[in-house]
């Protein structure tokens, strides 16, 4: 189920192939979104029964979000998570297949974001999460009229790359690879200075330095690079959360804006902990509301 679009190179095996995407495309063309969603129940059941690695990847999250669950209930939660993620991937595929605006996207915080751009020439860091559908969310930002740079590795699964247009996003979206020298930070600093938007994943460290942060009742490892870059570039961090409300509607929230800063004395990185904790708290709030839209298929509670 994981597309691995921003996945760890050493992470779980890639799922999804051309035939699978072809079937989903046919369902979308013939019976619309709901037909494709129906097909998902069977596909996800297959993953639940035969792909135990997929289930075990979801368990660290399920165990924290639903701590009182027994074995059967945990599997039920995994099944619902798979279906929920599948729906959001189908939505992305449907948006590409139909070539039109299929979804009603409500953008909360647009005015706040525009005011931010008007106040300063500097760019912003858009902090995304393994929650909801950040790809759909990015399309809603087209109206900002800003170029968006995504910090992401190249998608390794060719079927996913072709079918979901990963790395080939429409609009004024560019990619910065973290695999280049210095993790792409020189390019990030330059584009922020020019007033562009840089999108960085905030909830998995992919080997980068991380802090132990309270999250879903335990200490989890959250990366702080986005906050360190923002503090150095003196630009804000805008937390982007995109939740699916119904089959054809999403709510994208950009109302949470953090402005991290460091004093020149003392351990600079550790000064960022309150901001990382605040981000984790915001994410947790959404997870409480939409428990099946958190796609953290990785044990972030284990270093």
């Amino acid at each position, binding site marked *: 189920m994981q597309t691995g679009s921003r996945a760890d190179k050493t992470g779980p095996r890639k799922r999804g192939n051309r035939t699978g995407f072809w079937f989903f495309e046919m369902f979308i063309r013939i019976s619309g979104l709901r037909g494709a969603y129906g097909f998902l129940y069977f596909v996800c059941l297959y993953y639940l029964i035969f792909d135990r690695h997929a289930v075990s990847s979801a368990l660290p999250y399920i165990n924290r979000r639903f701590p009182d669950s027994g074995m059967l209930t945990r599997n039920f939660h995994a099944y619902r998570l798979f279906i929920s993620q599948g729906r959001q991937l189908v939505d992305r595929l449907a948006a590409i297949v139909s070539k039109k605006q299929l979804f009603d996207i409500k953008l909360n915080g647009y005015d706040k974001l525009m005011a931010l751009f008007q106040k300063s020439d500097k760019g912003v860091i858009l902090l995304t999460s393994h929650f909801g559908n950040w790809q759909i969310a990015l399309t809603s930002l087209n109206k900002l009229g800003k170029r968006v740079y995504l910090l992401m590795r190249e998608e390794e699964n060719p079927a996913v790359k072709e079918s979901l247009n990963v790395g080939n996003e429409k609009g004024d979206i560019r990619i910065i690879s973290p695999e280049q020298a210095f993790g792409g*930070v020189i390019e990030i*600093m*330059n584009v922020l*200075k020019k007033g562009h938007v840089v999108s960085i994943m905030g909830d998995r460290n992919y080997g980068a*330095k991380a802090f132990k942060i309270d999250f879903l009742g335990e200490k989890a490892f959250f990366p702080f*690079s986005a906050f360190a*870059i923002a503090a*150095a570039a003196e630009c804000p961090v805008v937390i982007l959360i995109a939740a699916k409300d119904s089959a054809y509607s999403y709510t994208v929230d950009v109302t949470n804006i953090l402005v991290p800063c460091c004093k020149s004395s*003392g351990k600079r*990185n550790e000064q960022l902990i309150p901001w990382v904790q605040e981000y984790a708290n915001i994410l947790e709030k959404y997870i409480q509301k939409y428990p099946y839209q958190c796609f953290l298929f990785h044990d972030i509670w284990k270093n």
Partner: protein
Amino acid sequence: MESKEKNLAEIRKLLKELLVENLSLEDIRPEDIKDDEVLFGDGLGLDSLDAVEIVVLLQRNFGLEVKDMKQGREIFYSVDTLARYIYVNKKTT
């Protein structure tokens, strides 16, 4: 020629102080950093977040920008390469 070397030595000294101050290098004094010591990876062990601080340090203290990754790789090699870049390009100190 003598003046160039003197200027470079001054920049190297200042850079080492700025690196220790801005990168929170624990238990390292400016004089512990060798002029030709590799800054990233095996040498001084700096990482990508330290590169962010060096970019800012160059902007704030010398009014200099690092335009791209290729240029960054050459400039950020050691204190000496940083100092030479500053010497050739500096606008303000």
